[in-house]
């Protein structure tokens, strides 16, 4: 269990986290979705015990992170965004080093190491220096390393950054299987919608505030019906036109007009009929987490 209550954090004048509260339970994959500067990294640092708590409270399996650092550290497996492996050491040496830091040794350590390398499909590369492995394989070794001391919580900061689409999908599947079989709690940060979609629950962070919280499907259900994305000659002209003709007010995002409505297919038909010269193209679809983000914050995730 992770319990975050009223967590705030400021850097000099800038407020990085503003009264954030949420909780995550075992067997769950929880994703913190937000753009750069949303406070994700600060929250991650606080959860991983690398930054002191100034206001609010965080408990991990009942242990107060501020007061019981050592106990909390034993419960955590952490994968940082920057590679945490020593490229000059072999895969096994990296894991052994990590095991020793956590007080593992001898036969126990050797068994656990080979078990995890086997599971993550890197056993055949065990004796090679890490710098010779591909990015995808290095990520797997990182997870194996973080899981070595059998943590109850796995924290991952932007775990799929630098991976291609296929490797990312594979990675997310592996993570899902891991959370399930080991019954651990997985919390990851991401700015990628695909990654967030793969989570059981998502917390949406924007400018330090938690603006949305729930399973991806539930969050998407809050966005009304369908989403229509319109590219047009003059956004201002069409926006006024849509307000007058249909009584809905579109949101301007990145030179597109975005409209949420029930029965979107009928709206598209009527729109094109009403403004044949204005509309250049129309994209029509079910809401994604991106739409949820826009609805909650009024801007695109990359803006």
């Amino acid at each position, binding site marked *: 269990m992770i319990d975050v209550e009223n967590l705030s954090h400021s850097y000099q004048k800038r407020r990085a986290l503003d009264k954030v509260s949420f909780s995550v339970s075992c067997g769950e994959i929880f994703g913190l979705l937000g753009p750069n500067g949303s406070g994700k990294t600060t929250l991650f640092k606080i959860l991983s015990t690398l930054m002191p708590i100034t206001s609010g409270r965080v408990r991990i399996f009942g242990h107060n992170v501020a007061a019981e650092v050592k106990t909390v550290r034993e419960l955590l497996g952490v994968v940082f965004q920057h590679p945490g492996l020593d490229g000059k050491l072999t895969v096994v040496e990296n894991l052994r080093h990590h095991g020793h*830091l956590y007080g593992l040794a001898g036969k126990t350590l050797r068994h656990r190491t080979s078990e995890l390398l086997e599971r993550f499909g890197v056993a055949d590369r065990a004796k090679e220096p890490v710098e010779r492995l591909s990015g995808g394989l290095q990520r797997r070794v990182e997870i194996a390393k973080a899981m070595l001391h059998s943590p109850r919580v796995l924290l991952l900061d932007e775990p799929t950054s630098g991976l291609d689409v296929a490797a990312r999908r594979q990675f997310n599947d592996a993570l899902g299987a891991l959370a399930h079989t080991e019954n651990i709690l997985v919390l990851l940060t991401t700015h990628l919608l695909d990654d967030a979609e793969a989570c059981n629950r998502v917390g949406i962070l924007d400018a330090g505030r938690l603006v949305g919280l729930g399973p991806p499907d539930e969050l998407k259900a809050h966005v009304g019906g369908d989403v229509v994305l319109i590219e047009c000659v003059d956004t201002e002209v069409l926006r006024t036109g849509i307000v007058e003709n249909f009584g809905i007010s579109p949101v301007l995002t990145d030179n597109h007009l975005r409209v949420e409505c029930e029965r979107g297919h009928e709206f598209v038909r009527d729109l094109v009929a009403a403004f044949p010269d204005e509309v250049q193209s129309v994209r029509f679809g079910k809401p994604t987490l991106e739409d949820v983000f826009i609805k909650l914050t009024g801007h695109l995730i990359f803006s």
Partner: protein
Amino acid sequence: MPIATIWWREIIRFYRQRSRLFSAIAQPLVFWLLIGSGLSASFQPSGETGEMSYIEYFYPGIVVLVLLFTSIFATISVVNDRREGFLQGVLVAPVPRWQIVLAQALGGTTLALLQGVLLLFLAPMTDIRLGAASLFATLGIMALLAFGLTNLGLLIAWRMESTQGFHAIMNLLLIPIWLLSGAFFPSAGVPSWLEWTMKFNPLTYGLAAFRQSLYLDTPAKAIGEGSAWTLSLLITGLFCVLTYLGATLTASAQAN
């Protein structure tokens, strides 16, 4: 266990990047041979240094320079480790900060000591004759010096965001500390402001202790470069303690 494993990694890394071994020892050696030979003619030791060639005078300074280079280069890896994720991974482990710093310091010390020992083999090129006593004392003082210098490096490295910044500090602070330690020229006869600077330089005492330990078996040649043996040892020991405490405090402040 955590101390041993962090220490071991420092050694392994160094061993696998053998160019580092070479660079830390080659430059001082070139200095020694070129500057040592070049200045030999014009080196006129004042009374207390006795009859001694410059090559011989310069030798202890060169050993200390090798210790300085090796320990400082060892701590540069902290800057990289911090920027990459490796050190973060160590910091989230349930290991107290003082143990992490101690392990890093011992790692640097070991490497510097190994390089220093390599240089001791060159002692016969000078008139220095090492017996059992002086060898023993020399190794001990080299270890102390290396430990203090590594901690000084750690103290700086734990604050540094980039290795460029580290090199700047190296040139502006560490090299002058070495130059003004009596490694390069004796303090006798220098202008008084320089003499005082040298008196307040902790490395002056480390170097004096090292110099004296080299001549332990040939007391006739021992040169009292200013300070007494006990004072030199005491200040060097204090330097080790203070730099270690400083490095631990810095590491704790930088990362909880």
